[in-house]
């Protein structure tokens, strides 16, 4: 990632930067970024001073109200303003200081994790610096250049998960019914290759919560198993946190976790608290950190009453909660969740979802989740990866998915009189369903507003209620699956 300052004079209330990223194999991704620097004080900024090397860390930076730079996490929700005083008054260095401050905050974080920093495209004209703590050091001389220097590591973000052309093929033996076929199969087995995963490529950045969608047998769980290290791929590469997962190196295993819905790793007969202690020993978690993490998880998941009971005495929902705690007790940086809410009742599903979101917010852990329940994905994931028949069909924001795959809207018109005569309504759009007094139409997205207006106009008094909605996400997904083309988002 390279950074280039486009505005040589730093008197403007913003700074424009150019970020360029080399994606490998000759492709480059570049973006222009604009940073707004908001002054709270009226003190004039001395613009004659040039970029000066910042003092090394720990030397005389004071934090008071001053230049405000927005520093935030990956998603819009997590912006936290950071106030910095720069006694030399350089905006550009203010950015760096803001980041340093964020770093300092997180150095106080009890859970040490590798640090990554990512500078991303702007939204709303602000520079978003995404970090997952702790950040070791920043380059200081050239304030806007991230460089490794002696004693100063400024790392541009590396993706947490990097997958290239990953493939997994299973060999299954086929046999027909009947005695003759059984005997035949003794002598000669018919083998068939099943491409569970047929070559997928994607990357996941730190702190993301990504949902894997796909019908049964699409390859989601197989992908997850390869990323967690349980399966060797047939071809392709994958790296998680810089490790090759299927080598299952201890260092990797200590920073990741796999949670499978409906399957428990806890010993049935003993209370969960005892299982936690065993896990503490296995992961070598220091006592202080262990107590703190357990405390946090107990609070977040409301486990106080549950941990002393033998696991077999807990209900399914309670067991899932305890299972989550056990899976996160070593504070992993990456969590793979395979159908985490399966079999749970609605309220428990909601609680688990809230927990996952909160956990991601608090710790910045990267989360990959597969689920059948659209609600899980809608609630948690800004980004979805759709897999079907082992191929990647879509990779991008969930919101855009609807727009891309289902470029239509659903108009539901409720009429006063019982009769919903179809003749006239056919003209407005494709009639999807017709019940007493209610008609559901499918209308092209582009023309939806116009058609709605016309409907309201034409129906006048007859219209009791009208709603215009995006198609239900399940329908969107269905359409994705039935589409024959593989679509990869830019």
């Amino acid at each position: 990632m390279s950074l280039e300052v486009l505005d040589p004079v730093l008197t403007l209330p913003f700074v424009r930067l150019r970020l360029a990223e080399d994606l490998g194999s000759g492709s480059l991704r570049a973006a222009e970024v604009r940073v707004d620097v908001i002054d709270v004080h009226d003190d004039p900024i001395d613009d004659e001073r040039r970029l000066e090397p910042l003092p090394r860390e720990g030397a005389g930076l004071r934090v008071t109200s001053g230049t405000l730079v927005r520093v935030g996490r990956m998603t819009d929700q997590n912006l936290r303003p950071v106030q910095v005083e720069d006694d030399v008054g350089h905006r550009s260095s203010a950015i760096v200081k803001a980041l340093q401050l964020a770093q300092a905050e997180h150095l106080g974080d009890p859970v040490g994790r590798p640090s990554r920093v990512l500078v991303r495209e702007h939204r709303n004209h602000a520079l978003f610096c995404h970090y997952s703590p702790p950040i070791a050091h920043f380059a200081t001389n050239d304030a806007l250049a991230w460089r490794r220097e002696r004693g100063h590591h400024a790392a541009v973000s590396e993706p947490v998960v990097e997958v290239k052309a990953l493939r997994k093929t299973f060999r299954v033996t086929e046999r027909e019914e009947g005695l003759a076929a059984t005997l035949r199969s003794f002598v000669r087995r018919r083998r068939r290759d099943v491409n569970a995963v047929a070559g997928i490529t994607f990357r996941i950045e730190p702190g993301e919560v990504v949902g894997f969608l796909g019908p049964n047998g699409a390859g989601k769980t197989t992908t997850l198993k390869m990323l967690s290290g349980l399966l060797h791929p047939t071809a392709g590469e994958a790296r998680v946190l810089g490790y090759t997962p299927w080598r299952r190196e201890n260092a990797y295993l200590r920073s990741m976790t796999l949670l499978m819905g409906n399957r428990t790793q806890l010993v049935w007969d003993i209370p969960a608290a005892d299982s936690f202690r065993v896990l503490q020993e296995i992961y070598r978690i220091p006592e202080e950190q262990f107590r703190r993490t357990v405390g946090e998880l107990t609070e977040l998941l409301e486990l106080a009453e549950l941990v002393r009971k033998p696991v077999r005495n807990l209900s399914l929902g309670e067991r899932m909660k305890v299972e989550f705690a056990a899976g996160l007790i070593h504070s992993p940086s990456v969590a793979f969740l395979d159908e985490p809410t399966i079999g749970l009742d609605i309220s428990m599903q909601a609680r688990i979802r809230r927990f996952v979101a909160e956990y991601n917010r608090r710790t910045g852990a990267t989360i990959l989740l597969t689920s059948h329940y659209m609600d899980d994905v809608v609630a948690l994931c800004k980004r979805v990866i759709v897999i079907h028949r082992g191929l990647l069909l879509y990779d991008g924001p969930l919101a855009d998915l609807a727009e891309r795959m289902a470029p239509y809207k659903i108009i539901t018109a409720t009429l006063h009189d019982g009769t919903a005569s179809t003749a006239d309504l056919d003209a407005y759009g494709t009639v999807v369903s017709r019940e007493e007094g209610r008609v559901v139409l499918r209308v092209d997205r582009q023309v939806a507003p116009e058609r709605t207006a016309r409907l309201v106009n034409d129906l006048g008094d007859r219209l009791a209620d009208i709603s215009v909605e995006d198609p239900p996400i399940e329908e969107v997904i269905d359409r994705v699956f039935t589409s024959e083309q593989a679509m990869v988002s830019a």
Partner: protein
Amino acid sequence: MVRYFRLLRLFFRTELQYELEYRLNLLLEILQTAVVTATSVGAVLVLFTYTTVLNGWDLGAMLVLLGCFYLVQGFGELVLQPSFEKFMEHVRLGTLDFALLKPVSPQFLVTLRHFQVVQLAQMALGAIVVAVGLSRIPSVGTFEAVGFPIALVCGFALIYALLLALSTFAFWFVRVDNLMALYWSFMDAGRFPVDVYPGWLRVTLSSAVPIGVAVTVPAQVIAGRLDVAGLGLLVVGSVAAFFLASWFWRLGLRSYTGASA
């Protein structure tokens, strides 16, 4: 290595806590063990009302052998049987994955995980029977005294190796309970010295199902019927079996995770 001992102790303590909660159960099981051991000793005594020597083994040596049998069987039921049973359940239910993703050797985590603490009583009773048998043996030299625990540990290792190798088939066939159960039934033959059995059975009990070796050899050592060479052979054999079985198990594991051979 120290860490693995700590983990073992933790596994043991956890199960102990659990078993201690059911005091009545524990007491009953200890009682059962005592009854079983007593009746087995009774059986040996009945045999010896008709003779003073059985294939060269006198009553003292026979009791030592019986004690060794309960020591070895007790060890098997203490940690191996519950752990391997759980292992096969894991393979069946798909929960083995959890064990593979911990930063600890999967073989350790799977094969030495679960304890049936009450079996310590079985082992203790076995030790008592050995002591009783020893009291009837005139002299026990240093070689015998030192060689005995060594031989015993080798016996444990042999049984471990066999169970490990058998359970590896679970990776391919999933349900191997029958195989395991068949093995356990052969174990019963360890209550008598392996040389009383006819040729084919004796060979089986010295190789494929090494219970014969695992029990008879320690008894031979302490009864002064084995020399250094024999003991050395046992040690070498046990170590070899252990490594061979571990290698085989890892092979099965690689097949399970789809690693190309």
